[in-house]
């Protein structure tokens, strides 16, 4: 056994994490002194905090600092993903207050929990040790279980929380077992060292322990990113959770799962790429197809977007299967655009919805385009972007994901992806048909658009359009981000 030496610690790489953790704890304290009808101030404070954290993260662009004896790294890859998490958290905070007040559960703990989730996701993206990644994942998950069940008077939210908790823990078990076996096969939990050890093996695919570890980790991550056939929890949890949290869960944590999986599989196990890309191929096809086909027959719009989010994970898996520069840059690009378009769509759903989570069906959008033309145009932009039509961000993202697959020779995968994408147009356009071509069945007088809500919709519209019109703006960052891995 070697001596334990305490290495020099550089706190720079985790500065945003420290800042957000402290902010979350301070908010918890402030919450005690804020009366129940003023909880929105906590939301404003956390939004300012998230913007400040964004500045801190952006300042780290271009650097490469390893710390905590190589278990945390600050690189462009981590920075890009941290921006995605902050975007999704910031937008989710903006849409939370109005919804939570309407549903009568505007407890101040919501905002610190969102911030803790972001801290966990950031650790997942910057972790270069299986231990750090596991810890980040759990910090994220434990906070998310609470957020899913946040509306504790609502039985559906209870169910969502409990279901998410049980299946989340279950999947953690698999992930952890995979990590243990990988550790056993390589003798280390540090990703760079695993890469070195595996690189020296003459035939890594013959090492049963390593392959089993890899497959178990893949299963664990597939649960977290809701890839079929491990997606069963997703529709129920997304339907039952409070809508702003559904929006957040489908954007941020999914990206975090991809961040950690990309780092582990591309950096630590590139020599096994032939093996894991075969598994991912199957997962990608299943995920896209199951997500889209089931989404076709959903009337509840939250549930429809839940299945659509499964399908979107499938598109991203296409890029992952390719595993080359275009594909992985496509994942980064897509996850960022998806955060904008998806949370934007959920913001509109919150506006259309009524107390008690009612008015959440596609039919309730009838006549929306006549009554609220501006919001309807925004919703159309989000739906077009989700369906992947030019000139939106969704189109460019899918274009890069699929061209990455074609470059690697996965022609059939790309074809299946495009076919799926075409099928998905049906259920997105169905909402628009109701918005523009049906007469309103009831008045939309109850709707009030608060300032944070309007800000969220505006940011989301910009975020879904600009990367589609000027793709290089975001893509150049995505390409720099994947250079280090």
């Amino acid at each position, binding site marked *: 056994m070697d001596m334990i030496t305490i290495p020099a610690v550089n706190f720079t790489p985790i500065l945003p994490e420290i800042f957000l953790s402290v902010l979350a704890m301070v908010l918890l304290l402030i919450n005690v002194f804020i009366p129940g009808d003023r909880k929105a101030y906590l939301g404003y404070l956390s939004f300012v905090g998230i913007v400040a954290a964004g500045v801190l993260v952006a300042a780290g662009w271009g650097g490469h600092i390893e710390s905590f004896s190589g278990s945390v790294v600050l690189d462009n890859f981590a920075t890009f993903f941290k921006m995605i998490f902050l975007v999704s958290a910031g937008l989710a905070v903006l849409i939370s207050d109005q919804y939570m007040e309407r549903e009568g559960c505007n407890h101040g703990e919501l905002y610190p929990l969102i911030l803790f989730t972001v801290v966990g996701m950031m650790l997942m993206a910057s972790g270069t040790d299986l231990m750090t990644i596991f810890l980040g994942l759990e910090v994220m998950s434990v906070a998310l279980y*609470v957020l899913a069940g946040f509306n504790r008077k609502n039985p559906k939210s209870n169910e969502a929380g409990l279901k998410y908790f049980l299946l989340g823990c279950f999947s953690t078990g698999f992930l952890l077992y995979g990590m*243990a076996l990988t550790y056993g096969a390589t003798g280390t939990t540090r990703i760079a060292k695993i890469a070195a050890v595996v690189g020296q093996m003459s035939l890594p695919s013959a090492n049963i322990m390593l392959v089993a570890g890899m497959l178990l980790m893949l299963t664990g991550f597939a649960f977290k990113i809701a890839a079929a056939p491990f997606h069963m929890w997703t529709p*129920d949890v997304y339907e039952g959770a409070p809508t702003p949290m559904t929006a957040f869960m489908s954007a941020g944590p999914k990206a975090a799962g991809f961040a950690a999986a990309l780092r582990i599989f591309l950096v630590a196990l590139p020599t096994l790429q032939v093996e894991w890309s075969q598994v991912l191929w199957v997962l990608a096809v299943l995920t896209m197809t199951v997500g889209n086909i089931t989404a076709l027959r959903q009337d509840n719009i939250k549930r429809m977007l839940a299945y659509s989010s499964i399908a979107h994970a499938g598109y991203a898996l296409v890029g992952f299967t390719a595993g080359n520069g275009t594909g992985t840059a496509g994942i980064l690009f897509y996850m960022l655009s998806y955060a904008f378009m998806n949370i934007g769509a959920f913001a509109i759903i919150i506006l259309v919805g009524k107390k008690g989570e009612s008015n959440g069906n596609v039919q309730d959008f009838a006549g929306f385009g006549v009554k609220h033309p501006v919001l309807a145009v925004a919703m159309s932009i989000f739906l077009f972007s989700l369906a992947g039509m030019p000139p939106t961000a969704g189109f460019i993202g899918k274009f890069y994901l699929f061209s990455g697959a074609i470059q690697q020779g996965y022609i059939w995968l790309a074809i299946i992806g495009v076919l799926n994408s075409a099928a998905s147009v049906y259920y997105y356009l169905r909402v628009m048909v109701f918005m523009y071509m049906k007469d309103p069945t009831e008045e939309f007088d109850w709707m009030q658009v608060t300032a944070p809500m309007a800000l969220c919709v505006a940011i989301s519209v910009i975020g879904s359009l600009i990367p589609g019109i000027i793709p290089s703006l975001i893509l150049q960052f995505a390409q720099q981000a994947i250079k280090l891995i």
Partner: protein
Amino acid sequence: MENLNGYLIISAILFSIGTIGVLTRKNAIVIFMCVEMMLNAVNLTFVALSRHLGNLDGQVFVFFVMTVAAAEAAVGLALMIAFYNNKESIDVDDINLMKW
């Protein structure tokens, strides 16, 4: 350590029992206990491997797993209480408002 395989086999068996338990039992608390069993099976794997490889990473990992399991238990039991308050039951068959 001569008998690494024995420890690995035992932990694999424990892990499988836990998995089967999660899939077959109906009571949310029992399911959660089965998950804990899976986590502890992993802990056993980590400790055995750590001893076998002669480095401490695995044992440090176990500490983190135990901490995380405790945090999960706190949150999970709170969720179960919230569920029980509405439903008077923690049977997963009663988790049925939305189709699985």
